[in-house]
């Protein structure tokens, strides 16, 4: 959870002469921001920005959002369990910042693309963005994932990972592999997938598997989808995972 309010960095940025925040809000930015929010943020922060009690912080009514610099920094770098989105363009980050600062009852004013660019200039550069199809996991990881998947996950998602529960008492769950999985998660990163899984799954007892097993299960999902393995295992580094994006087979 963020612990501080408007920061010294924001003041510094303003004093540097580029206004990150402004009073007016561009409607086109809001529209673009809404679409980006639906794709990348809503899964955790929920459609009305309400978050999930004690799991994902609410954006509605969050005073932290008053600090535009803080918002931009967190989108770029991630924070705690929130994955980073370093590959979003400046205008996309601006659109998202506009949207979350001026939706769900928030009225913190607009954010400019130029201001976002200035803030990001002080942050770590994007680094190499990869696709899941670039050999990002190892077969050993996927094998481990196959071994640990069935007991906690197969109950609802099914041992075939197609969302048909192994346990008839469970309600069918989303598929975790193949075309449907690629479509639903298209454009998101493995960082988002890991964070979401660890914080919410299994529903009855989220986060009870070792972190490495969550990663192994993701490798198993990729392998079942037909994504080829590589020689370097998936890393638990959220920055690293945030730069591996999910998408259709090239």
């Amino acid at each position, binding site marked *: 959870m963020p612990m501080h309010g408007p920061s010294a960095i924001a003041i510094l940025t303003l004093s540097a002469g580029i206004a990150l925040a402004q009073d007016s809000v561009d409607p086109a930015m809001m529209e673009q921001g809404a679409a980006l929010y639906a794709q990348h943020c809503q899964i955790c922060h929920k459609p009305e920005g309400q978050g999930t009690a004690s799991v994902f912080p609410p954006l509605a009514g969050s005073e932290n959002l008053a600090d535009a610099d803080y918002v931009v920094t967190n989108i770029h770098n991630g924070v705690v369990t929130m994955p980073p989105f370093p590959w979003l363009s400046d205008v996309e980050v601006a659109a998202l910042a506009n949207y979350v600062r001026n939706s769900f009852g928030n009225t913190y004013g607009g954010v400019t693309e130029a201001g976002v660019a200035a803030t990001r200039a002080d942050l770590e550069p994007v680094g190499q963005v990869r696709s899941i199809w670039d050999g990002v996991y190892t077969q050993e990881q996927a094998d481990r994932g196959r071994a640990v998947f069935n007991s906690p996950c197969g109950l609802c998602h099914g041992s075939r990972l197609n*969302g048909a529960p192994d*346990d008839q008492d469970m*309600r069918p769950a989303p598929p975790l592999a*193949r075309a449907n999985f690629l479509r639903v998660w298209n454009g998101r990163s493995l960082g988002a997938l890991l964070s979401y899984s660890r914080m919410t799954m299994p529903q009855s007892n989220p986060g009870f598997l070792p972190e490495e097993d969550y990663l192994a299960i993701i490798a198993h999902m990729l392998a079942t989808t037909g994504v080829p393995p590589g020689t370097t295992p998936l890393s638990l580094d959220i920055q690293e995972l945030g730069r591996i994006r999910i998408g259709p087979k090239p």
Partner: protein
Amino acid sequence: MTDKRSIDDQDFKEGSLNRRDFFRVGAAAGMTAAAAAVPGTVMAQTSETPDGTIHWDYEVDVVIAGGGCAGLTAAIRARDAGASVLVVDQNYDLGGRMLHSGSYLSLGGGDAIQLRDMAGAADAEGFITVPPAEDPPELDDNIELLFTDVTDWSVVDAKAQSPYRYNEREMMRAWAENCPPTRQFLMDNYVRFTRISGTHGGGGLSRARAPYCFLMLGDRTDIEAGTITAEDAGVADPERTSPFAPVQMEDATSFVGPNAVRNGVALARPLEYSARKKGVMFILHRSFNDLIRERPFDGRVLGLTATYSPRVNPDTGIRLESFWQLGNVDDRREVLNIRARKAVILASGGHAGNPEVRSMFYPALRDPAFPTSGSALQGSGGQDASALKAALKIGANMAGMQQNLSYPTTFHISSRLGTRDAYTDMMPGHPTFVFRKSTGVAVGNAGFEEFIAVNQVGKRFFNEVRLPKRPGANRYPGDGAAPGQGLDHTPLDWRNCSAEWIRKSYTYDHGLDAAVALNEGSRAPHYYSGPLWAIFDQDAIDRTGWEIRFPYVSEENGYYFKSDTIDDLARQIYAGHPYSRVPLGHLSTTVTTWNGYVAAGADPEFEREKDAPMYAIAKPPFYALSIMVIWHDSYGGLRCNGRQQVIDMQGVPIPGLYAGGEAVGGFNKHGLGKGHVQGFIAGTHAAREL
């Protein structure tokens, strides 16, 4: 199958290292052994009723109709109290639907497993190596809280029905009080419980109350040692099911530790083992028909009649035989009158497999095209309303008539396609696979995005993406001020059913109702809506990886068809499906129209484009898989008091008659917890009758 061998009494008394072989004995030898080893078990040949008009073929203290979760529990309980017990079951083997269940057994009230997990302790045998899944406060339960939970008027489910409000109060009080002793009783009869993880539907919201039942994989199947072979557990081959376990056992690593497997097999087989060992007698292949009462609506229940109903393999003509035989009485006479000196216990299930009785609750579901769960395992006698019909004939009352409508497993559309028996994934290797011939293709809810669903005339009837959605179980996501479960749940709080919460939680989708609606093929007098079909093409298979091959589908059973043209596909369905009553005259037009919608990006009939991408059905071959409606639970049934005595229309117990499990109404509780505790109570009191 290993060779059967005879044993003598010495073997029986001393036990055997290999329990599986031990029980694989001939029926006659088993019966002799039991009768000799357990002197209290009297197999009367003939006796006369007080008025001398009835010939009795057998006479025992307690007769139980049905050997499932309520019946086996009652049988052991009564036997423990010294009664001679005879169980009559219509199937070839014991366990009922408990055997194919997930074994998620919600009890509570401060039961032994809650206390064990609260203390962070392992099981007595030391199999459990994982820490508790629930925090101690979530397990801190007592009988008052459990009773409050299962009579909580304020709880509404996601269908805006109230699951607990209408429960029979005296019965619920007895149930809550008997949950802890029933848990201990099951543990004393070789049932091993995993860590508790949540609560099963209908078990109350305030605490975590449900573990699964498990066995450990080992080199032999030994109920007393708690081990099972991979072959018997059905985990040795992903496409084989064993005669021991009609559904492959599931990995229980995260609830127990490595090599643990779970499901109803780890509950049903231990209880069956214990019952047989303790001298309970069984007459299988025999349908219970009627109760015999002193006078039509008055006096004691004296016994029951049961008819020979052999389950015969239709391909070989050979009768199926139970996995274990000890205690079996192989009597093939057509009709038997069986006298119960103390009591009859009705535990023969609900009405979910009887379309005519279902009609009382939802007339559209009278269509016999739609079965109950476990229709292959149980055959046509499963859940056939035998207890309800027989008890009504002697004046019994009913309870919970509207409660069938308040839990999503009562009736729903299955996401397992291509088999009539669409509830479980039984594979070849089980003796009843022959009654289904295909395992079905489990596609999940998401699979419904890949095809169009049509009715018996070949017309679409609903947004397919929403078709399989069911209103949520009796669980409430804790979310700020909204009602929650576990420690977030505030019992009896009016806000649980405030208008605001109901608006927020109401998620009822009417796909099932559209599926069973009248259509052009519905004809007087029944106006059946007919079978349902998923229609798709080769591209759908390429997208999903569905395995359209045996054992998942069969070209023989009429639930799967394939063709290079839609017209021929429609012709094949009409000719080959056992419940096709009219041609699918609209199918070609429907597919053409659909492909037009896909090209235009909009589905004006059902607005499906809002929910998921739409795919053309254009690349041959074309496929049809059956979509089944399953009626699973029975919440309307016989009215009982706190002793599980059946109550008559005057509100008075019928002397000598008890009931438990799905036969009983007025208790909205899905699954096993209802049956085991009611069986425990019924067995207790039946054995005490004079």
